[in-house]
């Protein structure tokens, strides 16, 4: 027997399949097909959690995704620990272990419940009012305390070991919601042959047919009809049926995000299964069939465990075979709760009384209830619930006042009416309209190609819903596929409703006994502990917009997003304001409809797959040599090559000295490379770079500066002219994509008359820099067809030929100040050529050097790095690069911006060198520079250090800095105030080593 409250004759679960589970360490039996909630209820467990703010005991309110109370932690193992799982949604599996949350030391005795007694101090706006002062207390006291006390559930502290998947899909008709209306719409659409996706959040399709015992369609029980129809749909090639799949977000142009829970319901999910799958669906037409959500009654202590929605109690009985009590009371303002009372009574449960707020309702359900001998009271209200950990009674009073009567009960089923689920419609930017007669918001103006059908559209009754849905499904199919395949009529026949239930109306806001003259705790929002009184107080304190009321009280702001509470809250605010509901307005619905895991959104994009890693052709060699790598954008670059016992400092010193005394090999493959080709290539280069290019001879190179239109340095690099119509342009490593974009932009939109083609060749060429006095000796033996003499191949020239038998673009250029070459070879040969050069280099004492040594060597020569020594506000003049700007040019990008008054004014920051008075002191990059270190704080800063290194070759530290009016300060002493004292520096030129440049030919 799976629980004392299981009724074997009721429900659809097979009694044979028992599943054991535990809650707070206690072991229970359930049945396969149960949710955790139904299994707990079958065992008579209603108390499942403590509330957020007051720590009040809470039970199970609903049987679906709207659940605000029954949030538990499900723990599979130490890493698989999921907080805030709705027990009403979690399917039971054998061995499931759940824990209650927000209680200490135990669920039935919780110290935090003192908040309930102290509740006058925790009223609406509490956070805003209480913790304003002093500011410092926020960090040390308030925030940690509040976080510890007010959390619901605890996040796992280990990385998520599960994997998630992600799919894109396209369809003609996407049907969201698999109740009667959704299934009918999907049938009509699918029968025309178009591509259909039907999704529902539940494990089984059917929606409210799960509990509507009175529904019969095509001669069958309604739920059985839905299973048959969905099986038929699933078998069709043009239909994809997704169960356990929630549409959580409706975005622009019918782009819908859905999460499919693939394995959370399985006892032992195989590792081949993802935990969840994210579907991103683009649909030509969307049919919204999201149903309606029942509202609770707002009365004193309406949150006691055992008080639940009438429809939920009916679901537990008719689907799961579980009675929610042995002696239940009913409190309602509409017909639907009668059906619950009737079903329970027929199943043998005592129904103590139905309390109906309406004065003299009539109808078949009321007659039937009476005929079954159920006591029915009209015009009366439940003014109070008794009991603490479980409801024990309901106190009834005539709604206009009078004598009270207390009726013992162990459960109260309540219904204030049904709220159409317009969440997705609203997310699609559709505008809702208030129907004054039925007191509900329904879809009004549509913003996208979608249509609402059934209960979410405010359509009452199964028959009307099915008619509407079938027609809408057929029309959506026609509209969606007309342009591709032409319209086809549906081939099937419309489902016929033989019997159905129908209810509408109800009430909004606080019930009698919880009115403005009372101080009772009548909960509107269970999850955030917001009462009717809180909402009135917010209005009295000046919150007149519903958006303000919501933020002040936090009504509707919990993870359930106010699915049961929004309309009540709105009605109470409207009543207090003395305004009609539509004038107060509804708060905006936002995605996600229900919480979505980070795992589903992130999917495989985590760890090494978060961002692509780019490795050069020579990377494996550097790795084998024990290189330490650094990240430069997405690239891994060899930073330095430590020998046994060397730290970074020692390695870099050795590498720097080797380059200047013998030679060094450096992997420069990450340099951006763009080929500019065409009859107008030189004209194009003239416009994109500050330098003159027309007269550069083929075979020669030039250092180019690229500006933005505002006159600031954007990028730089050496450019080789291979032929009159062909330039090999290099860019900074990080700048390659944006330089390419910048060039394409001007070529396509400003200079489209130029006949030029641009090709990114960064990945095509591996680049090996060979620098140092021995560099030519290392390269020459391997080169064919290129005269390596200084006369034939002077500094800043380029030749095409062969090296090691493969094609090369051989540049004679230097970023070290030494005689140097950059050997470009097709990337596939990169490592082989490197290894050949390395072998040759060994004969001459060459070292491999990394990016750190490269930085030091270039700084010794005063060569700038764009992005390090410049920051987007530096002009060529500021950087001392006026010589690279063509004075006679009529136009280039940046020519006008560069001449703006501020950019030519005196006193601009200019790049200079700095030498510390103590040569052993190495400045910190980014350190600020002042004229007078004794001035009052805040000091006037006149610049900052951009590059700073220990230079073994100079035997001292060196630095570059941007200093206001820097070039007029040569020889001056400036100061760098640091936490450990002031560093004295001398302003110098930018070249620290070989000022005459003789070593370029050394």
């Amino acid at each position: 027997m799976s629980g004392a409250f299981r009724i074997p004759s009721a429900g659809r679960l097979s009694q044979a399949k028992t599943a054991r589970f535990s809650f707070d360490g206690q072991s229970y039996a359930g049945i396969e097909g149960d949710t955790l909630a139904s299994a707990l209820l079958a065992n008579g467990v209603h108390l499942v959690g403590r509330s957020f703010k007051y720590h009040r005991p809470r039970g199970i309110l609903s049987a679906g995704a709207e659940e605000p109370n029954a949030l538990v932690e499900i723990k599979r193992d130490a890493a698989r620990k999921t907080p805030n799982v709705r027990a009403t949604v979690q399917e039971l599996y054998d061995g499931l272990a759940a824990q209650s949350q927000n209680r200490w030391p135990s669920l039935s005795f919780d110290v935090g419940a003192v908040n309930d007694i102290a509740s006058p101090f925790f009223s609406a706006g509490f956070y805003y009012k209480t913790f304003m002062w002093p500011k410092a207390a926020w960090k040390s006291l308030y925030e940690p305390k509040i976080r510890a006390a007010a959390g619901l559930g605890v996040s796992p502290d280990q990385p998520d070991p599960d994997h998630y998947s992600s799919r894109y899909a396209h369809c003609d008709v996407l049907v969201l919601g698999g109740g009667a209306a959704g299934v009918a719409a999907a049938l009509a659409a699918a029968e025309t042959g178009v591509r259909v996706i039907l999704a529902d959040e539940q494990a089984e399709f059917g929606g409210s047919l799960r509990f509507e015992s009175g529904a019969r369609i095509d001669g069958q029980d309604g739920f059985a009809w839905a299973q048959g129809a969905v099986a038929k749909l699933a078998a069709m090639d043009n239909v994809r049926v997704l169960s356990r799949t929630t549409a959580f977000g409706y975005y622009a142009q019918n782009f819908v995000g859905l999460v499919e829970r693939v394995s959370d319901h399985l006892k032992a999910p195989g590792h081949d299964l993802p935990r969840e799958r994210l579907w991103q669906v683009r649909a030509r037409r969307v049919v919204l069939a999201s149903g309606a959500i029942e509202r609770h009654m707002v009365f004193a202590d309406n949150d006691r465990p055992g008080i639940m929605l009438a429809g939920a109690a009916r679901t537990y009985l008719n689907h799961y075979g579980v009675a929610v009590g042995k002696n239940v009371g009913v409190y309602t303002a509409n017909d639907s709760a009668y059906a619950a009372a009737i079903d329970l009574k027929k199943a043998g449960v005592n129904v103590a009384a139905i309390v109906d707020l309406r004065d003299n309702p009539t109808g078949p359900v009321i007659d039937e209830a009476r005929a079954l001998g159920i006591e029915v009271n009209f015009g009366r209200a439940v003014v109070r619930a008794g009991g603490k950990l479980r409801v024990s009674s309901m106190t009834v009073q005539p709604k206009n006042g009078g004598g009270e009567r207390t009726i013992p009960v162990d459960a109260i089923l309540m219904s204030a009416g049904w709220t159409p689920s317009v969440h997705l419609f609203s997310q699609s930017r559709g505008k809702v309209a208030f129907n004054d007669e039925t007191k509900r918001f329904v879809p009004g103006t549509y913003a996208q190609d979608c249509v609402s059908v059934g209960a979410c559209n405010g359509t009452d009754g199964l028959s009307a819903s099915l008619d509407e849905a079938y027609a809408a499904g057929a029309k959506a199919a026609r509209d969606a596929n007309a342009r591709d395949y032409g319209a086809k009529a549906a081939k099937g026949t419309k489902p016929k409703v033989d019997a159905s239930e129908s209810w509408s109306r109800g009430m909004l806001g606080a019930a009698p006994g919880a009115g403005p003259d009372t101080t009772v705790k009548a909960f509107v929002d269970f999850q955030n502990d917001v009462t009717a009184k809180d909402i009135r107080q917010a209005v009295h304190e000046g919150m007149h917009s519903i958006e303000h009321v919501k933020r002040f009280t936090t009504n509707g702001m919990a993870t359930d997003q106010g699915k049961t509470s929004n309309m009540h809250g709105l009605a109470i605010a409207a009543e207090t304001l003395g305004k009609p509901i539509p004038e107060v307005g509804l708060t905006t619905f936002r995605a996600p409809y229900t919480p979505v895991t980070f795992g589903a959104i992130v999917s495989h994009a985590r760890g090494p797959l978060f961002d692509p890693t780019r490795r050069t052709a020579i990377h494996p060699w550097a790795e084998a040599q024990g290189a330490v790598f650094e990240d430069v954008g997405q690239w891994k670059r060899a930073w330095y090559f430590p020998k046994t016992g060397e730290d970074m400092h020692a390695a870099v010193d050795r590498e720097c000295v080797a380059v200047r005394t013998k030679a060094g090999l450096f992997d420069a493959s990450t340099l951006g490379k763009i080929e500019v080709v065409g009859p107008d290539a030189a004209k194009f280069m003239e416009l994109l770079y500050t330098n003159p290019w027309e007269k550069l001879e083929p075979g020669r190179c030039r250092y180019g500066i690229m500006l933005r239109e505002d006159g600031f340095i954007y990028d730089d690099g050496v450019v080789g002219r291979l032929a009159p119509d062909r330039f090999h342009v290099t860019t900074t490593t990080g700048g390659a994509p944006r330089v390419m974009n910048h060039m394409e932009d001007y070529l396509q939109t400003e200079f489209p008359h130029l006949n030029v083609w641009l090709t990114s060749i960064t990945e095509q060429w591996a680049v090996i820099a060979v620098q140092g006095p021995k560099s030519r000796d290392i390269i020459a033996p391997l080169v064919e067809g290129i005269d390596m003499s200084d006369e034939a191949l002077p500094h800043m020239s380029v030749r095409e030929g062969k090296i090691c038998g493969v094609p090369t673009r051989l540049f004679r250029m230097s970023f070290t100040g030494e005689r140097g070459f950059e050997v470009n070879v097709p990337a596939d040969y990169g490592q082989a050529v490197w290894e050949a050069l390395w072998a040759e280099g060994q004969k001459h004492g060459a070292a491999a050097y990394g990016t750190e040594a490269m930085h030091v060597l270039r700084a010794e020569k005063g060569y700038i790095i764009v992005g390090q020594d410049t920051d987007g506000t530096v002009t060529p003049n500021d950087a001392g690069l006026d010589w690279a700007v063509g004075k006679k040019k009529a136009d280039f990008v940046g020519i006008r911006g560069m001449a703006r008054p501020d950019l030519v004014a005196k006193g601009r920051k200019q790049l200079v060198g700095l030498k510390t008075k103590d040569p052993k002191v190495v400045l910190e990059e980014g350190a600020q520079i002042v004229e007078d270190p004794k001035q009052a704080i805040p000091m006037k800063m006149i610049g900052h250090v951009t590059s700073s290194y220990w230079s073994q070759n100079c035997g001292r530290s060196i630095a570059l800095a941007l200093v206001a009016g820097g070039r007029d300060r040569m020889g001056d002493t400036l100061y760098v105030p640091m936490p450990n004292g002031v560093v004295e520096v001398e302003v110098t030129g930018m070249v620290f080593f070989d000022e005459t440049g003789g070593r370029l030919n050394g």
Partner: protein
Amino acid sequence: MLLIRCPYCEEERPELEFRNAGEAHIARSANMAGESDDDFEKFFFIRSNPKGIIHERWRHMHGCARFFNAVRDTVTDKFIMTYKAGEPKPSKLPGVAK
């Protein structure tokens, strides 16, 4: 995620393939060096930033890589039409009054 029609590919493609490139129809002067400070300010800094219809540049970055122009409503975020770079501002917009 929006769908954007590339006028070169003649296909609607997801927004992820595109990159916005700022306001359209701001011509670079043929005599750039001779522009006054005021004219340069207008050209480089001043943008219309309308509430409503905007003409803007997009690039089909991860597709054909072409720059093109689009008319978009900044209130609804809807693309009204797209057209090739160099074509004049369309005089009639489909589905837009006035």
